C-alpha cells in the first residue's frame, strides 16, 4: 500500500521510492578506519536522540564472534550517542552492527568496519 501511494505521488514528483533511513552521523573508531591502539569503547553518534531499549550495537571480530561487553548505553549528556565497551582488541578487522530506534520511533540499521593494526 505504501508503495502504491508513493508510486502515485512519484508520478508527479519523480521520486525514486527509496525508503531506507540513514542516521549515522559519525563514529569512533571512524568508519573504515585503521587504528593502531585498541579503543576502550565504540561510540556512534546519530542525528537524532535514541530510545535505548529498542536500540542495539554489536561488535564482532573477523570470525563473527561478538566481542563487545554487552553494556550498551546512551551518553547521559547526549541522547544521540550510543556507546558499547570493548575489551583490548587484537589486531584484525572488526564489524560494528547497529540498530537505532530514534525518538520519533523510526528504526534504522547499519554496519561499518574498522581495523586494528599491529
Amino acid at each position: 500500500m505504501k508503495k502504491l501511494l508513493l508510486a502515485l505521488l512519484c508520478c508527479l514528483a519523480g521520486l525514486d521510492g527509496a525508503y531506507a533511513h540513514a542516521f549515522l552521523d559519525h563514529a569512533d573508531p571512524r568508519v573504515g578506519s585503521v587504528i593502531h591502539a585498541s579503543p576502550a569503547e565504540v561510540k556512534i553518534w546519530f542525528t537524532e536522540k535514541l530510545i535505548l531499549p529498542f536500540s542495539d550495537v554489536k561488535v564482532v571480530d573477523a570470525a563473527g564472534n561478538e566481542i563487545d561487553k554487552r553494556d550498551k548505553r546512551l551518553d547521559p549528556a547526549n541522547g544521540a550517542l550510543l556507546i558499547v565497551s570493548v575489551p583490548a582488541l587484537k589486531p584484525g578487522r572488526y564489524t560494528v552492527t547497529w540498530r537505532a530506534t530514534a525518538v520519533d520511533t523510526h528504526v534504522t540499521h547499519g554496519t561499518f568496519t574498522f581495523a586494528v593494526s599491529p
Partner: protein
Amino acid sequence: MLTEEILILSRAVHFGSCLALLAIFAVRLIVEPPALDDGRAARRMAGLCLALAAGSGFLWFWASAAGMNGSGLIEALNWPLFQLVLTQTPPGQAWMFRCGVGVILALLLCFARRGWSWWVGAALAAALVGSIAWLGHAGASADASRPWMLAADVTHLLAASLWPAGLLPFALLLRRRMKAGAIPEARAAVRRFSAISLGAVAVVVASGTVNALFLVGSFHALVSSDYGRLLMVKLALFAAALALGAWNLLIHKPRLESSPGAMAAIARKVWIEAALASLIILVVAILGTLPPANAPPNP
C-alpha cells in the same frame, strides 16, 4: 510490509481527525456566532472526530511499537511491550499525555453543556493537536535548535487546524445554513471565515518555511531527496487549495450580496478545497515516515 502501511494510514486518519476536532471548536466559537442551534450537531461531529482520533492513535502507537520492537503486529500486541514503550520512551510519554487529554475532552463532550465548555474543549483540542509535534522529527531532534523546531511545528499544526482543516466544518456549517434558508447568517460566516483563514494561511506559510529550513535546509536537498520531492508535492497541493480560496475571496465573495449564485459557488469550491486538504494530510502522513532531507548519508 503491512506494519508500514498501517502506520501511514493511521497517521493520516489521526492527523485529519485531530485537526478537524480543533477546527470544529474554532468554527463554532469564531465563525458560527450567532449560533442558530444548541450545538448538538457540532458536539456529535467533535465526538466522532475524537473517536476516530482514539482508534487511529491506538493503531499508530501499536504499529510504532511493532516497528521499534522489530516484530510483526500480532506479536507486538502485548501489554509488557506497550508498558515498556509508554513508560520508558519519550513518544510513549507523549502518548500518555495525549490519552489523558483525550479522556478529559471525551467527558467534556458527554456532560458539559455550558458556553464555557466550548472554550475549554478548544484548549484541550489544541493540546491534542500541538502535542503531535513531540511525535515527529522536531521532537526527536538532538541539537540546540529543538525548541525552535518544536515551536514552529506546534504553530504550523495549530494554524493548519484553521486552514485548511477548518474547511470541512465550515463547508458543513454553510450547508446547514443554506438548507435552513439562513442566507444572511451564511454570508456573515463566509466573511468571518475568510478573515481568519487569511491569517491562518500566513502563519501556515511562515511556520512551514521555518520547518523546511530545519528539515530540508537547501534547494539541492529539496530536489534531490525523497523528503524534499514529496514536500514539493505537498506544496503543489497547498498552492492549488490556496488558488481556489483566492478565487472565492476575489471573485465570489464581493458578489455575496448581489448574486444569488455566489453562495453556492463558494460552497462548491470549499468542498474541493477540503478534498485537497485531505490529500495534503495523506502526504504529511508519509512525509513523517521519511528521513529529513538534510539527514546525512550512511558513511
